[in-house]
């Protein structure tokens, strides 16, 4: 009664595009399902309409890659079953549940490649829910896809390669960047020197952003912890500490984030076993080098299987497709697979170093007042969560969600689960892997109540 596809690829970013390309090359016709309006993923996202900007304007140093991937995907269109603007919201019994335009559909699969990507990893600070505070990814998306800056005068805050890149993109687009506030100490950046041998172009380009920002007169601060946002209806300024000094900057927008977190809900619903990843400080679906999970027919690629960046996503997308081809009894070039696996391992080593250069801000909550909102959906405060931990001697994350309501809202913990985990672990003096992980629940994103079945 429902259709069954031999291969479904979820996601059309670099991983999904490269997976689809390798599948088509092997003579398969994959179904490619993507939430986006146009293929490219978040990193190579295209504006809804042409706005006169060139690929270099949009993607900077990555313009050639973006253009190539867009062109390759467009060339694939006759050979794939492409379903844009379609949300996969559940996986059960080897079936995907999809919705597009308020219509519900199921599609069975023999093989499934999940390339579900990542979202910004964020932590709460006083004022982070105020209009004008956005994630770094949001600041970049506003500019890249919509040609807007998130404010007139923007402060960039956090840790991760995106921090300097997006600040520079804002300057280049004519935005006023009030400051770049790095939560890591300057010394952490020295780690980048040892990353040069893995990818000199990427590392040197990345390092150049800070230099260019300084040349444009943008102030950089290190070792920063934000202490509050001025304004009651929207951002009017940001207060922060840099080391022992306190500062205050007038601004009407703040873009912040701490690298990315993998979107793993579909892998969870599919039943994939998870492992704790020390570098990403979270649980990730376990895979082999080629992206195979221990669930038959289910493969992972791209940032959704662990944050590794766009170039690594291209590699892992192709690898997962070759694994599908090989496991289906068709010919997959073993040399190509081992070359890709080697390249993937080198990207992972690069990532290890980048994590040292842009470290997660440990002890974040030492300076966060209890009244700060932790869960922005349910509006649960930090102190309310800590009280729930103490009052019930909690040691497990799902239990904390059940009793505190944090993580129970529309976003299913995407914006607060990292904070919940850090707070629970530090409050109870436990290690992060000891407190478990939030279980995904269908639907992984809100569904219209009036959803109706296709054909009904």
């Amino acid at each position: 009664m429902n259709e069954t596809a031999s291969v479904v690829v979820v996601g059309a970013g670099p991983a999904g595009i490269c997976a689809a390309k390798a599948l088509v090359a092997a003579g398969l016709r994959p179904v490619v399902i993507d939430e986006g309006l146009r293929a490219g993923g978040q990193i190579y996202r295209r504006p809804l309409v042409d706005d006169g900007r060139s690929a270099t304007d949009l993607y900077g140093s990555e313009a050639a890659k973006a253009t190539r991937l867009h062109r390759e995907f467009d060339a694939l269109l006759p050979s794939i079953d492409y379903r844009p603007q379609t949300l996969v919201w559940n996986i059960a019994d080897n079936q995907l549940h999809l919705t597009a335009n308020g219509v519900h559909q199921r599609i069975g699969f023999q093989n499934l490649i999940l390339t579900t990507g990542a979202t910004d990893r964020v932590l709460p600070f006083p004022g982070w829910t105020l209009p004008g505070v956005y994630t770094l990814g949001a600041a970049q998306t506003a500019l890249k896809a919509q040609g807007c800056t998130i404010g007139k005068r923007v402060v960039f805050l956090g840790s991760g390669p995106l921090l300097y890149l997006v600040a520079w993109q804002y300057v280049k687009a004519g935005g006023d960047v009030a400051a770049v506030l790095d939560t890591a100490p300057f010394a952490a950046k020295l780690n980048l020197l040892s990353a040069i041998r893995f990818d000199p172009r990427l590392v040197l380009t990345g390092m150049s952003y800070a230099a260019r920002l300084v040349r444009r007169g943008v102030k950089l601060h290190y070792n920063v912890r934000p202490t509050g946002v001025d304004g009651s209806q929207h951002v009017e300024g940001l207060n922060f500490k840099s080391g022992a000094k306190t500062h205050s900057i007038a601004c009407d927008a703040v873009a912040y984030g701490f690298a990315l977190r993998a979107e793993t809900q579909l892998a969870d619903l599919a039943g994939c076993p998870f492992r704790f990843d020390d570098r990403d400080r979270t649980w990730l679906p376990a895979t082999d080098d080629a992206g195979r999970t221990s669930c038959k027919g289910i493969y992972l690629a791209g940032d959704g299987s662990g944050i590794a960046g766009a170039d690594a996503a291209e590699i892992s997308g192709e690898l997962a497709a070759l694994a599908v081809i090989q496991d289906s009894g068709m010919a997959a070039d073993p040399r190509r697979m081992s070359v890709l696996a080697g390249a993937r391992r080198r990207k992972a080593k690069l990532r290890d170093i980048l994590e040292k250069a842009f470290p997660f801000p440990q002890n974040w909550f030492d300076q966060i007042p209890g009244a700060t909102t932790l869960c922005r959906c349910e509006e649960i405060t930090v102190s309310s969560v800590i009280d729930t931990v103490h009052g019930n001697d909690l040691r497990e994350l799902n239990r904390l969600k059940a009793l505190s309501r944090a993580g129970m809202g529309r976003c299913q913990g995407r914006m607060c689960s990292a904070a919940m985990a850090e707070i629970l672990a530090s409050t109870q003096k436990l290690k992060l892997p000891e407190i478990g992980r939030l279980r995904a629940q269908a639907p992984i994103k809100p569904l219209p109540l009036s959803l109706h079945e296709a054909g009904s």
Partner: protein
Amino acid sequence: MATHHSRPQFQRHFRRDDAHIPFTIDGTAYSGRRGDTVLVAIMSVTGQLRRSEFTSEPRAGFCLIGACQDCFVTLACGTRVRACTTPLEAHMAFTTRESGNE
């Protein structure tokens, strides 16, 4: 979205002269541009999208990629849409009254 919040949050740097797309918020007429998402259209003319359910604090979206679910807005017909992933269409009528509250 009363007048004192009408300070635009977003600043357009491109598509400024693109075709204007009319829409309303609580009956007040505004225009976005061809190629806008609902979020960009609204945040380019005002300072917030909605009030939060439990503390009535202003909210204006957060992640812009359909993950944080912070930017749902209500159309006059009662349909709720996620502003950051919904393209603006001409004559969309947004209401900041809570759905089901009439």
